[in-house]
């Protein structure tokens, strides 16, 4: 298994926020915390594009690098998780994260910052799998149930794909090849060039 990854196809995302709702519902995320959100570029302008963003489970995660108490860890499947019992809620990870993934719930009457909360790729955290404690702290552990993240599985247009990076890339490659457009978003050679033909070019005349 390679690495668990999300991929959002901007050609397909219709900004329905179904992924955001699915995540909220599945993990019972507290008020004010959005583990996933939909970002729209050029909103209102013809040709606007939306993309669903959450923790990208970076291979070399900056949040892990800057955490002063080292509460982050990476699972064998490449999911970046953290131990909320150790987190001191300092917010360094939020500064480090390029995607704004770490979220901080309001804790206490004076707007004190609580412990960090973020997308877990529906993989729970360092508690007994599928236990009440795990659900209360980290949300659902769908990977331990043989399922994929709720946001991706609920996506109506299948714009958001989640799973093993190689499989996800394969699905996206098939899609982009068949529809013949949208390749320039990621770079044809990088995203769709099969290992047996890395110099493959985008179809002529294809336009996004």
């Amino acid at each position, binding site marked *: 298994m390679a690495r668990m990854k999300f991929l959002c196809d901007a050609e397909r995302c219709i900004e329905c926020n179904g992924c955001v709702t699915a995540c909220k519902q599945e993990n019972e995320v507290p008020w004010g915390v959005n583990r996933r959100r939909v970002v729209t570029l050029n909103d209102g302008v013809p040709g606007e594009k939306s993309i669903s963003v959450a923790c990208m489970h970076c291979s070399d995660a900056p949040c892990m690098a800057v955490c002063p108490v080292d509460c982050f*860890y990476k699972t064998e499947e490449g999911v970046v998780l953290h131990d909320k019992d150790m987190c001191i809620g300092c917010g360094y990870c939020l500064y480090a994260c390029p995607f704004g993934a770490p979220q901080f719930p309001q804790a206490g009457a004076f707007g004190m910052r609580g412990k960090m909360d973020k997308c877990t790729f529906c993989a729970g955290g360092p508690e007994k799998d599928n236990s009440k404690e795990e659900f209360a702290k980290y949300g659902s552990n769908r990977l331990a149930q043989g399922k994929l993240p709720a946001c991706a599985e609920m996506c109506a247009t299948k714009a958001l794909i989640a799973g093993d990076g190689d499989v996800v890339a394969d699905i996206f490659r098939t899609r982009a090849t068949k529809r013949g457009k949208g390749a320039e978003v990621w770079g044809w050679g990088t995203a769709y060039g099969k290992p047996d033909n890395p110099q493959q070019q985008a179809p002529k005349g294809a336009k996004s």
Partner: protein
Amino acid sequence: MISACKLAVVALVVTAGLAGCGEKEQVIVYQQGKYQGKPDTRPWENEPGASLYTTSKWTKGDKSSWEAVLKSRNQNQNEYTRAE
């Protein structure tokens, strides 16, 4: 003799007095770059039927069978293969 006794008493008082000044580390000593939290279990180490609403089947402890389950589930996101 008396001065030796006095010296011993003074030494004892000083030792006892200074003992209170000793400071032990009262917080966890963090090792830079190493996860300090609790260990986590791996998803394939669970019984497939242990939780509600699970339809996926894999052999407990067998990583490859769990991966196969996820890979087949992954293909539900690929309508090009679903439709054919």
